[in-house]
């Protein structure tokens, strides 16, 4: 009985196998390797974009482009990150209205 249970357990684990990617190796994507836990001041941020697991990254992150062109990695689930994103979105909407 125990060996049967072990076999079933092993099979169910096998189903979750992570196999090598098509082409032999995983793609070397531009990704964040870690995220900052310390809030970034919102006023030095110029733009943002998401790099998530579906983009081939292991660490999901919001990437903030600073005024100097640095690309800082922030956690996507923090309220301070959401605040900066909302402000950037509001600003870009305002700019569009001004532009038209």
């Amino acid at each position: 009985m125990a060996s049967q249970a072990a076999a079933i357990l092993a099979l169910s684990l096998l189903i979750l196998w992570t196999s090598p990617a098509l082409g032999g190796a995983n793609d070397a994507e531009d990704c964040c390797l870690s995220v900052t836990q310390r809030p970034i001041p919102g006023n030095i941020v110029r733009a943002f974009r998401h790099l998530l697991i579906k983009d081939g990254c292991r660490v999901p992150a919001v990437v903030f482009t600073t005024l100097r062109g640095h690309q800082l990695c922030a956690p996507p689930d923090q309220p301070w990150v959401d605040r900066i994103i909302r402000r950037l979105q509001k600003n870009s909407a305002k700019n569009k209205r001004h532009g038209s």
Partner: protein
Amino acid sequence: MGTEPAEQVSWGPYSGEDEEVYSAEPLPELCYKADVQAFSRAFQPSVTLVVAALGLAGNGLVLATHLAARRAVRSPTSAHLLQLALADLLLALTLPFAAAGALQGWSLGSATCRAISGLYSASFHAGFLFLACISADRYVAIARALPAGPRPSAPGRAHVVSAIVWLLSLLLALPALLFSQDGQREGQRRCRLVFPEGLTQTVKGASAMAQVVLGFALPLGVMAACYALLGRTLLAARGPERRRALRVVVALVAAFVVLQLPYSLALLLDTADLLAARERSCPASKRKDLALLVTGGLALARCGLNPVLYAFLGLRFRQDLRRLLRGGSCRPGPHPRGRCPRPPRLSSCSAPTETHSVSSWDY
């Protein structure tokens, strides 16, 4: 004391110094891998296409030779060699798709992405597992041949083992079949495996552990044990064929160590990183990607070289191939369209020095 505390400066209006305060302490930045990607764009398609050409030609020849000889599969080793050729042929069939996808993006849609990824994954695993089967078959054949002479082994059992291996490989390919998707990134569509975000860390950890234990340790253990025992048996044996048989074993083990082991080790280290949630610096991460790329290419080359190592070195295969190339006759001339007379052990085409105990495992 005229200066403000740093904390307040950084929150003040942007003055140009704020970032200096922040970049003084390293903040995690995006890791650009443009150089690795450039290397990958050149390396991956060229390796893939060369291996595809080798694999299609070599494994196609193995299967064609077998079909042309119309011989019932006799030993478990020959049955597993055929399955290995089939697995490698299927793998080689998926490679042109991978090369095209790497060169100009995936343009065949999500369903094809799943099918090709699934086939790739299943045949990759099947090949690895059949290699372990062959090592076990060879040990069993030698161990049986030595003390009491060869006993015929049931061919039915080899088919059962083959069926189990394919079933297992399909199971292992399930994630690729289910979760591969064609996603867009920076203007290029890619076909890649993306696990659903809902999977918890424990599930991921368990699956990675299963991968290491069953995908790495098990086949490696089987092969190491079988070839070590086989080598010991051969070293203890006497006879003219001993050297030749030993040479084949050494070639097989060396090829496996050079081609497959580096990728398995790189994958093992990568999995350890994933499990420990270890953070690497950007240069270290790029080195790791490069290592996975190069060793992955080597592991792929295995599928193109398997026919050379496993089939072409065998006696019976060479006879059959000769027959195939000469249109069904053993020698040009004396035997008009006749099949080569085939006594139960060795045909008259083979060299007289090669004797039964070799042919029983060295197909």
